[in-house]
């Protein structure tokens, strides 16, 4: 029955959005993590979404999956601050390339998408319950 597939599809959407929320949380919490070298500095992470097409009982089901998490290649913020305990020999500290405002917008978008998937599961559940109770009472 097709309605069972809806749970898989919306569920895959929910798990993908959860990964997105996780990376956003990680980015925001590390937004001010300074370091004394370019290599050690935290870089903003973002998930890459892709459509999954798998056969289920002879029918194509299109869900979503996280292909991977990529690190942003945007330049790091470099600040001259010789008094900072983390500064390197030239007196520079390095800040992550996280744009907090962008991350906030990303978080809102992810939570709205998650909500939408929850609504879909709820509606499908109601429809299925109603189908099971056909002709009853």
């Amino acid at each position: 029955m097709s309605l069972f597939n809806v749970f898989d599809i919306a569920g895959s959407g929910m798990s993908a959005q959860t990964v997105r929320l996780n990376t956003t949380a990680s980015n925001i919490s590390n937004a001010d993590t300074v370091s004394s070298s370019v290599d050690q500095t935290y870089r903003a992470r973002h998930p890459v979404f892709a459509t999954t097409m798998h056969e289920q009982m002879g029918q194509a089901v299109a869900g979503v999956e996280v292909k991977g998490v990529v690190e942003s290649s945007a330049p790091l913020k470099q600040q001259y601050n010789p008094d900072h305990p983390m500064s390197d020999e030239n007196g520079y500290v390095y800040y992550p390339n996280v744009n907090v405002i962008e991350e906030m917008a990303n978080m809102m978008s992810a939570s709205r998408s998650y909500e939408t998937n929850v609504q879909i599961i709820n509606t499908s559940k109601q429809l299925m319950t109603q189908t099971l109770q056909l002709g009853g009472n």
Partner: protein
Amino acid sequence: MAISLDGVFGLHEQAVKLRSKRTETIAANIANADTPGYKARDFDFQQALADARGDNASLSQMKVTQPGHMTTSDHGGVAFEMMYSTPLQPSIDGNTVDLHREKAKFTENSMQHQASLTFLDKKLQGLVKVIRGE
């Protein structure tokens, strides 16, 4: 008077099948609302229902007479053509899902699904009444 049980449910039997298929299609669109390059899909419900009931000789009556002929995809006993929706405002990453439009379609589809289920429910209740002779 004989009651034909085949005809009791009318078009609602096929309608419910197609409605749940459409729910699945729209759910896939919404789940992929943020996937780059995903193309939103849907199908013409009215056409699919007409084909499922054999009202017009198009999809359901299409026959394969040569090995190279294309067949319409079978979706659990009902045949219809999947189509790609035309985006009002395509996004730069190639995704054509319009989340608001999809949500509206989903709500409309579930209301219609519910209507069909209510019709089926009432028909069954009617039959039960007849059998019990109340």
